[in-house]
């Protein structure tokens, strides 16, 4: 008979071991899943985790790691601040879309003028767009007491419709021969978020992600605002006693998350994606939730988790083309990761004891 016993304080060791343990368990369970689908489990796992880094075409895939990882990290950093404070913004996907729309909108508005000011303006507009979209649940929560989880999520669906409306309407490429989707920003130099060093995948979004990681790290470990965020999440009553204004925290956390998600969307639309199209968003906003938890809501952890999750995206694509592994299997694989993580997390705060039957 198993029994849980609360530890006097959270175990430091397990805090860092549990994510690794979760990854290992997910690999095993994922292998079983792939075997059930009739694929060789060892080959599938190797394809996902090994090929992109050290395989034959690694020179092509390694840059992808940064390209796919950057938006995940950028969004997850923003989400982690809120999650730490007990403010659940799960609508990052919507903020990502709106940031892309406003960012691209500014760029398209200036077409075909060339100026070095256009890209910075787009960056601002992207951040602002995501921020505004995140302010809706924030303001409604403060003004009316609505649940930010539901409102931010509903706004994802609204943003998706908005994206479709834009791709088919105002932002449609007038020279696109009727195809949906905007002009390609990669062919518009002033608005193009180009690779900074050719062949590395390094673009402005990657730079922003790294800055965000450092910024969040300093904030959480050294700054009083970071302390207040942690305090509010762990003991809301103690936070009010300490003088934290909860309303301000809601605005800061949701606002930061929205702005970062908007930035991620803007960098994506002006770089790797290139245009506003109906299927522009691929779920980074939701995967970032997994990244945030897998990284233990810690900036450095998120950096690693973001790269790992990017790896599963790229490896998943390889496995899809080489082995015919369905795309949904990868999605399920990522979902499992969060599941196992939450399950083994119990070890951080509790000790498991084996007890004889009669004593229980």
């Amino acid at each position, binding site marked *: 008979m198993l029994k849980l*016993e609360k530890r*006097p*304080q*959270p175990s430091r060791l397990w805090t860092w071991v549990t994510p690794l343990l979760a990854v290992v368990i997910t690999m095993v369970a994922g292998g079983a899943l792939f075997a059930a689908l009739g694929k060789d489990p060892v080959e599938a796992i190797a394809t996902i985790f090994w090929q992109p880094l050290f395989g034959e075409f690694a020179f092509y895939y390694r840059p992808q790691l940064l390209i796919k990882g950057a938006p995940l990290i950028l969004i997850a950093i923003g989400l982690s601040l809120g999650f730490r404070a007990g403010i659940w913004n799960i609508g990052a996907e919507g903020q990502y879309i709106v940031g892309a729309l406003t960012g691209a909108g500014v760029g398209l508005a200036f077409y075909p003028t060339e100026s070095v000011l256009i890209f910075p303006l787009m960056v601002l507009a992207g951040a602002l767009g995501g921020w505004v979209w995140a302010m809706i649940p924030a303001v409604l929560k403060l003004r009316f007491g609505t649940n930010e989880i539901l409102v931010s999520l509903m706004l994802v669906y609204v943003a998706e419709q908005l994206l479709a409306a834009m791709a088919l309407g105002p932002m449609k490429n007038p020279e696109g021969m009727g195809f949906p989707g905007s002009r390609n920003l990669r062919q518009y130099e002033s608005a193009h978020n180009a690779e900074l060093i050719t062949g590395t995948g390094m673009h402005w979004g990657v730079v922003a992600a790294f800055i965000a990681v450092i910024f969040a790290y300093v904030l959480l470990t*050294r*700054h*009083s*605002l970071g*302390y207040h965020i*942690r*305090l509010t999440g*762990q*003991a809301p*009553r*103690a*936070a*009010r*006693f*300490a*003088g934290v*204004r909860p309303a301000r925290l809601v605005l800061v956390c949701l606002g930061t998350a929205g702005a970062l998600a908007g930035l991620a969307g803007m960098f994506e639309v002006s770089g790797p994606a290139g245009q506003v199209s109906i299927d522009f968003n691929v779920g980074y906003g939701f995967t970032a939730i997994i990244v945030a938890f897998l990284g233990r809501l810690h900036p450095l952890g998120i950096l690693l988790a973001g790269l790992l999750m990017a790896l599963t995206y790229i490896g998943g694509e390889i496995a899809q083309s080489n082995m015919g592994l369905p795309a949904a299997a990868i999605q399920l694989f990522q979902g499992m990761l969060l599941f196992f993580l939450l399950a083994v997390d119990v070890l951080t705060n509790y*000790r498991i004891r084996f007890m004889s039957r009669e*004593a*229980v």
Partner: protein
Amino acid sequence: MTTPLLSISGLTKAYPGVVANDAVSFDIMEGEVHALLGENGAGKSTLVKMIYGLVKPDSGAMSLHGAPYAPPDPHAARKAGVAMVFQHFSLFEAMSVAENVALGMEEPPRLRDLATRIREVSETYGLPLDPGRIVGDLSAGERQRVEIIRCLLQDPRLLIMDEPTSVLTPQEVEILFQTLRKLSGEGVAILYISHKLEEIRSLCDQATILRQGRNVGTCLPRETSAREMAETMVGSSFAAPERAPRAPGAVALDITGLSVASPSAFGTALKDIHLTVQSGEILGLGGVAGNGQDELLAALSGEILSEAHAIRLNGTPIGRLGPTARRRMGLLAAPEERLGHAAAPDMSLTENAYLTGAQREGLTARGFIRWTAARAFARTIIERFDVRTPGPDVAARALSGGNLQKFVIGREVLQRPEVLVVNQPTWGVDAAAAAAIRQALLDLAANGAAILCISQDLDELMEISDRFGALNEGRLSEIRPAQDLNVEEIGLMMGGAHGMEVAHV
């Protein structure tokens, strides 16, 4: 010799790090009022939880009416005739009295019939109660009646009462005792848990004293002095707090016409509170739990805002200022709930020192936290207040109640407050820690601070305060010098018997 109603022999229960009960044995006879006496953490609660089937002993045995008794859960205990009134009530605030009673019964009748029976029993025992009311709207004393009636409806043979008088006024205590005596006259055995010695001397036939989980002696309370019992309970004698002569100075805290709503759904609103505290003085505020104590502390700490002029600190209106600004001006507070309010359970002592020390100890520089300084501050608190802990990196929840409370009080005292507000400063704390905390408050006042001490422990208030007032349903009684008061008067200030009557039959 008759068989005892309940016989306990060699009950042992260990938790990681502590042996809560170590081979405890004693008997309870039919119709006997048996006291279970001991300090906080002596193992009283664990013992009664084993009798009530909530916790299973590691070893040892119990027998009821001579037959082996080992209840697997509270349902079995209730079926066997064991009933329990909990200290922290086992009630459901959003539900009606009748529903609450039904939940504590094995085979409750239909709600309508139950309501009738509740009325009957409550009248018989002088515990008036309306079965249709929502429990959240009841006072602490009324809530206890719900628990008692829930027990009485099942014709118990053994009634366990865990610290029942902590929520009653002296008048209510007297009436409760008459009810209990009547029950014991009917043959019901009562296991009465308390650390209030005078109560036990007036009520109980037998007493078993626990210390650190062991039965360290039994006595006949009527023939034993309170001092002897206290020494057996604590294991040593220690000095009572010393009261240095104090000369009250100017008014430091001035509350005029303070009225605020409670932030919680079933809280108590404060209604037109007037009081002043002079520097160098301790004002004690008594009252039964849930009569506005939490709200008053929150209104003073700045968690609840009020009209600016309702609260003045050294003449400056501060009603609209938040906790940070008030701290800077010298008004500090220590709330009742240690874990989650006064301290963050999962954070280290260093981080908890920063929690309220940020402003006055200069632990922040341009928004950045000076961790080295915060750590040093935590160390100082640990040393000066004798907090038993491996060091400042330990999480707050790892500390025992007494040690954490010393840390919380020490954190505020060491910041040299001009006015300090404390709520239940020694609640759930062992006697040695309680004495240390009271001494710290007395010393602080002697050094010229104004102290407002809210407490439900009347002995404590009489020991340290200069003047005394009581909160009752969010209103404050007249404030009077503490020395001239007797128990009767204090009880009336707290609201008297609140409509409770002596048992009718």
